[in-house]
């Protein structure tokens, strides 16, 4: 059958051929595509900076949130001794943001890792075992998915009580079904491929096939999901903190800092609100940028 190629469509073949000619593994190729993207480099820089903040500030700048208040220096605008100003209890905002990175990023990354572990496992099981296991698991996932994330997270916190650990659990439960669905879909597709049949023909056990042959191939879509999920989890954690359902005072969590300061924000003390808000925005932006770029890099067909 003859088909004319519309003049407007570009032909991607030379690019693919060039990458193939250099003899890179698909992973290397994806990594290079990612680094070639200016936007992704920006996102990576943001993530690295925030990670360093979270990792290094407890080492170099020890901080005890319980004894930090200085009621004489309440709501002071940014100056030399307090570059980001002080909050309503006279606490140094820069210090709290630096240490808040550990709490907020920790919540974001921790909850996503937990969700990824549980969700992927459930997805692998549902996809590979099939039948009744699949039906039961997916019924539960669909119920969880039917709820909008914020509502579900608040409901879970309402049930198990507010606090740092409980908000981590809540955010993580909210993200589990996404992992389970994606992994299951991938497993269903991969199960029928020749290399799986070959592994089975060679006498591989179900566990070996699942862990060594199928699981590695589900990683690319899961990586994209994970990066974007971290951005989402940071937002959700900050929202819970803002509503008073997440980290409890005096823990320096960015969302809780916003809740403390937003009533003063409208009366002129912008710094107490602006800096934690900017920290949340920047970190979320970083993960969103990298996530978007990763999707393009791992699946060049989707590039727009």
């Amino acid at each position, binding site marked *: 059958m003859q088909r004319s190629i*519309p003049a*407007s*469509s570009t032909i991607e073949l030379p690019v693919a051929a060039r990458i193939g000619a250099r003899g890179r593994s698909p992973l290397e190729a994806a990594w290079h595509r990612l680094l070639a993207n200016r936007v992704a480099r920006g996102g990576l820089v943001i993530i690295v900076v925030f990670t360093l903040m979270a990792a290094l500030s407890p080492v170099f700048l020890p901080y005890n949130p319980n004894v930090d208040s200085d009621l004489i220096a309440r709501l002071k605008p940014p100056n030399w001794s307090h570059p980001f100003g002080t909050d309503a209890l006279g606490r140094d905002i820069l210090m709290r943001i630096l240490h808040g990175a550990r709490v907020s990023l920790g919540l974001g990354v921790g909850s996503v890792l937990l969700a990824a572990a549980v969700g992927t496992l459930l997805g692998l099981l549902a996809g590979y075992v099939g039948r009744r296991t699949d039906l039961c698991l997916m019924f539960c996932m669909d*119920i969880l998915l*039917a*709820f*909008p*994330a*914020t*509502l579900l997270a*608040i*409901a*879970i*916190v*309402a*049930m*198990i*009580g*507010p606090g740092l650990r409980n908000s981590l659990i809540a955010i993580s439960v909210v993200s589990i079904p996404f992992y389970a669905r994606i992994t299951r879909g991938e497993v269903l597709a991969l199960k029928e491929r020749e290399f799986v049949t070959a592994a089975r023909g060679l006498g591989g056990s179900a566990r070996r096939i699942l862990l060594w042959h199928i699981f590695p191939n589900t990683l690319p879509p899961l990586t994209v999901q994970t990066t974007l999920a971290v*951005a989402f989890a940071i*937002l959700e954690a*900050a*929202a819970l903190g*803002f*509503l*008073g*359902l997440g980290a409890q005072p005096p823990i320096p969590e960015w*969302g809780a800092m*916003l809740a403390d300061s*937003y009533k003063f*924000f*409208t009366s002129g003390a*912008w710094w107490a*609100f602006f800096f934690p*808000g900017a920290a*949340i*925005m920047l970190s*979320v*932006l970083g993960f*969103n*940028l990298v996530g*978007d770029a990763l999707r393009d890099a791992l699946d060049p067909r989707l590039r*727009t």
Partner: protein
Amino acid sequence: MLGYILRRLAGFLPVLFVIVSLSFFMMRLAPGGPFDQERALPDQVRANIEARYHLDEPLWRQYLRYLGEVAQGDLGPSFRYPDRSVNELLGLGFPVSLTLGLCALAVALALGGTAGILAGLRRNSVLDYLTMSVALGGVSVPNFVLGPILMLVFALGLHWLPVAGWGTWRHLILPAVTLGTFYAAYVARLTRAGMLEVIGQDFIRTARAKGLREAVVVLRHALPGAILPVITYLGPASAAILTGSVVVETIFSIPGIGRYFVGGALNRDYTMVLGTVVFYSVLLLFFNLIVDILYAYLDPRVQVR
């Protein structure tokens, strides 16, 4: 079609049953109760209160009682507002939340749709990069940061709009924009992608070759195809906007369901939290059904079974 709807409706029952049971037991098995306060109540007062709300009965009895009441549409009394029932509170809050949600959805569609179409038509232009950068910013700004900023600029700085509260249409603007921005950004990205896919196809070239005006080509020929992904997104988005108003209601002191919900969550008001969850589950189940029907109606390739 009618059979399909009836079958879907029948499918709601087991789902609702699981949701109600799960939330009931999770809530009750957690430590702490609605009447645990800093200052302990005298034993007799406490016993009287517990007897009034049947909290002294065994758990399975309370569960059966709750199931029976929910089946009759009664969500019980609120523990936090003793003279009000949960049904009354939801009845008060829902119209407010719904109005806010619909306005936010309108903002999202109008803003996001227009931006997406323009960006898709002028691919790789300055306009395209600009709108897509703003959109990326939009999905990264939490509404609890955007809200106070808008409040500061438009209410306290320029005095154009009221700071907070509820009543006139002027009170509605800032919260609706705050709530809608995130979704506007997402809609813009979806519309742009859809536009790019449609605009290169043959029937668009034919429409242009017929000598139609560009506006007609874009709005009548390209747009219906381009917004299909947006419609798929509309179901979850509307649900998320409706329930996502929790944070915005807190910022702007709006008396919607979200405020009762958060209040209930903070005060372990069992019936309020459970009631809201049940209410929203029913609402969302119907919502998904409507979206599925709408989708089958708009895209003849989709068959409902």
